[in-house]
């Protein structure tokens, strides 16, 4: 082997090692971002819950969190399955707004007056190159179920932006459940996307 060949092999090896290092660093950065995002969100939720405000104000505060921490466009798309493509731009926009309000509404109602909780982080695992799963237990003292297993699916595209796209409580994915309900309503109404919008509007009015 000539000196040039040896140098080429050495250079190639160094490049490969750098590639692996950069890739690992990028993955580590994504998982760190995802964990930070979840912790920040939980801090914000805790602050809201500890403040004495009206139910309406609480919903508004949760809605701000939904827009800040969740990838609502992906959620809107995933929660309507094949019917998303058939919807008009106006319907898509309207549905995206409504589903955000519905999530804020449900979160506010489910948390009720719980103001003392902590998150016991367990793991953060990359799922493919665009998603990280953050797992842990939500510890809620003095409640009938003091420990709830939670998994957060965080979308981590190439940029540094991380956004939550799904939350699983005890293996029940909120997005899968919402999608199945949505699809059932659209199907019941002969494939009408506006029927879903109407159903959500009706639910929010209650």
């Amino acid at each position, binding site marked *: 082997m000539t000196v040039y060949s040896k140098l080429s092999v050495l250079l190639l090896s160094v490049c490969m090692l750098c590639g692996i290092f950069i890739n690992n660093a990028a993955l580590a950065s994504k998982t760190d971002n995802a964990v930070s995002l979840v912790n920040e969100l939980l801090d914000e939720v805790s602050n809201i819950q500890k403040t004495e405000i009206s139910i309406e104000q609480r919903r508004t505060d949760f809605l701000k969190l939904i827009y800040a921490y969740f990838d609502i466009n992906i959620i809107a798309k995933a929660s309507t399955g094949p019917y998303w493509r058939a919807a008009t731009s106006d319907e898509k926009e309207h549905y995206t707004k409504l589903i955000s309000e519905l999530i804020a509404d449900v979160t506010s109602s489910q948390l009720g007056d719980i103001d003392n909780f902590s998150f016991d982080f367990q793991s953060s695992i990359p799922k493919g190159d665009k998603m990280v799963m953050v797992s842990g237990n939500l510890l809620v003292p003095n409640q009938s179920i003091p420990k709830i297993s939670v998994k957060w699916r965080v979308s981590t595209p190439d940029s540094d932006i991380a956004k939550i796209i799904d939350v699983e409580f005890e293996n029940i994915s909120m997005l899968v459940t919402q999608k199945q309900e949505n*699809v059932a309503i659209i199907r019941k109404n002969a494939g009408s996307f506006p029927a879903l919008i109407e159903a959500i509007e009706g639910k929010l009015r209650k």
Partner: protein
Amino acid sequence: MICLGFILTSCSGVDKSDASLNRDPFENTNRQIYAFNDSVDTLILEPVAYGYKKAIPQSAKTAVANHVFWAGLPNTALNSGLQGNWENAALSSLHFSVNALTLGLINLVSEEEPPVSQDFGKTLSVYDIPEGPYVVLPILGGKTSRHAFGQVANMIVNPYSALEEKKAISQAVSMQPVLSTISWRAANFDIVNDIKYNSLDGYVRARSAYYQLRFGEMPSSSIHKSEADSLFDDLDFEE
């Protein structure tokens, strides 16, 4: 699992990932039974669970939950053995024997990882018996046919028959379905009410929650993809 099924169902152009059509061929009939179970829950179980939740001290509720768990341990031991999970079988036998001193009300075996509940439905899945269609049974609630069949088997093959002479134990066991139902409904009061009152379609939400919960409990769940995993595998993240 009786109470779980009952509660989940009482309150409670297609893409390839939507398996509900194949799973639920009797949907119309199931919805009617679901409506009946929903009424039973509203009229009886919900107010009883509310009273239990508010009036009973937390320590007593924990004792009841411990007892319900303890009462299911013989079935867990039997099914763990049938599944070849000897560690869980031994652990549940140990927990049952030691805690029998308190009828399971107080957990005398403090371990970080308690035995994992098993039933005949899960055992049948280990032997690759198909899950069958989703059926909603009056009072017992919605579940796969395999799970429903397993539940009947659980009742017939009752390991407590060996303890027939122990009157206290057999009396405690006869109370178990009632206690477990009330205890579970009270512990999950807000979650179940959320399904009942806040969902767009309570039947579909209850069915979806059942399948996802059950999947997570299956011995094979770690080697198969969950519905959420499949959903995101198929999803195009680009707008």
